[in-house]
């Protein structure tokens, strides 16, 4: 009987009560492991560029204007909040915050820029190593990105090829 079924549907609705949240007025609490906008801590960052190498969206750019300074730029424009950067960071310098209201008209609002003073390790030139062989495979040295034009460049096609700031560094795999 359709009438009975309508009655049952009405009961389903009535039993539900009010479920709407007062959203814009009071944002909903998110769980502690929520993956919101990543926050970079310049004090902890050692400039290993592991995050840049592992970012699926290629939103973290690394550039060395000179031997002592490394610029790490998080653009955040097409960041997918997957949290891989925070996962691979050996110093836990990246935290996935609980911020989720990140919509903005000005693209620079979500970006972050870290200027790191680097001292080069005389032996290896870098001090970061991935735990698994799968991850190690791709670590062929720094990718020289182009933060001024906010794009990342392929090593093989980079116009920097003629004048590399430092030599390509071969990673020792034990």
């Amino acid at each position: 009987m359709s009438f009975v079924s309508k009655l049952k549907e009405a009961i389903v609705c009535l039993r539900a009560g009010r479920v709407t949240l007062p959203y814009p007025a009071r944002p909903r609490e998110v769980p502690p492991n929520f993956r919101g906008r990543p926050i970079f801590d310049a004090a902890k960052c050692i400039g290993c560029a592991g995050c840049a190498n592992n970012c699926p969206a290629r939103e973290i750019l690394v550039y060395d204007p000179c031997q002592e300074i490394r610029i790490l730029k998080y653009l955040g424009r097409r960041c997918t909040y997957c949290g891989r950067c925070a996962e691979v960071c050996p110093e836990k310098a990246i935290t996935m915050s609980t911020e989720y209201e990140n919509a903005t008209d000005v693209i620079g609002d979500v970006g972050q820029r870290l200027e790191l003073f680097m001292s080069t390790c005389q032996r290896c030139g870098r001090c970061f190593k991935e735990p698994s062989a799968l991850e190690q495979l791709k670590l062929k040295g720094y990718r020289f990105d182009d933060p001024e034009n906010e794009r990342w460049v392929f090593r093989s096609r980079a116009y920097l090829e003629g004048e590399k700031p430092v030599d390509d560094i071969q990673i020792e795999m034990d």
Partner: protein
Amino acid sequence: MEARTKLGELKEKFGGSIRRADLPGGGRMFVVVDPRAIKAVCGHIFRDMGARYVISIGADDRPFSGEYLVAHNFAFDRAKLLCGVLSYLPAERPALDSISDVVPAASWAEREFRDLVGIEPIGHRYPKRLVLPDGWPEGVHPLRKDVSWDHVPANFDGELEFKFDDPPEGCVVVPFGPFHPTLDEPAHFRLYVDGEVVRGCEYRGFMAHRGIEKLAESVLSYNDIPMMAERICGICGCVHSVTYVQAVENAAALRVPERAEFVRTIMLEVERLHSHLLWVGLACHIVGFDTLFMQSFRIREPIMWVAEKITGNRKTYGLCVVGGVRWDIGSEMAAELRGVLDKLEEEWRSVVDAVSSDRNIQKRTRGVGVASAQLVKDVGLVGPVARASGADIDCRRDHPYAAYDRVDFDVIVARDGDVWSRLVVRMNEVFESIRIIRQCLEKMPGGPIQSQIEDELPVGRMGLSSVEAPRGEAHHFVVTGENNRPRRWRVRAPTYQNLQGIPSMIKDQQLADMTIALGSIDPCFSCTDRMETIDVRSGHRRIWSGEDLRRLALGGRG
């Protein structure tokens, strides 16, 4: 064992044409055949051996073997076997016989590799462009290895309008889409309408390409791809990430810790729960029954929240990496998940109880969009659409993956093949999902959730993986490669096959039923349109040009 028998049968019939065969075990079989015999072999497998067509893949293998590669994948569901029929084509003349007249389901896939890899299917009955827009120049094939991922041909005309076929005599064209209230995503159907009755249609889709496959084989790396695969679809993202990593694990013969398999199973079922509840809501919305739309979304919301608690996000779980999962489900979380499931089961039972005898919904859905058993076989329909037409196929049982071989569940099948049957199948599958999650939580062993991968992944191996997504079987094909990324990764989303059934399903139906018939396959255009290298914007007759729209969207700042 089964693979050996099937291969024996093929060898007996086509002995001379079979050049090589590989039986890696675990329900996979690869047969390399002479391109001249491809049609006969595929026809025999499909018609006489009763296999189900899955997908065809074209790949540019020139840098490695000097040849092009075509693979036609079939599934022997009863024998728990996935089979790839491979053919290598000479680099100077990449062409082979079309199999689409013996296997009608291959029509789209062949048109696709014609567009993207430039392999000519000889004798295809409708060799029109499928993926590339009409403004794309001839002879540029984005998935060839010598075309870079960001290449835009100089003579590409993004504003060129599509050329459409002429409607049949006496019919009027009703354009449906690309932007239509019941479509969440762009796809364009040109319905040929005679009075109120739909006589046929032409489909132009692939308007939301994001070039994911090209990116995967030229930019991303093995462990980046799961995060991107998840973005293939807004609803069954976890399915694609699991299917991809399983295909890589299958290719490289990697072992996954048992606990990781259970976590994957649980999250896949959580995804199915929220997807089915969403679909029931949307279907009711399409037929104008918004009460149930509201209620199913209300019932669905706790599932989203519990997923957020487990993985850190409502929808994009970021769950998989090659060799394991990233998030664990602790005992506290398990208890909470159980509580959510109990509540969901009780509430959903009362909804199903109310809806099953609701004559208003039945009037709109019974006898609408009927897919016959023959259509299921010919077009290769999958998932709830196939199961509603009496086809007893379900990858979770037929090609067990993750932990599905260790849980007990029923495959829901209905007979009528109409929209109502699909509604019934989906409503009842919710209970099966709840059952599976409960068993998983019970049986989940301890241990690590990621395996340590010590060696480089082997190069040039092929892997297949089928996962039962909420909408049907998602199938991925991976060829492992150098530089820590696959050589070729082919995604077949369930909608890819199901959409091909739409013209037959809506034929001779009322125009007003088109929306629910299309809605009933739960179309997901972003899944289907997952690959291309550029943003295709042509294809709709617009007053605004693309540039105007962009300026409008940017509020005059652009």
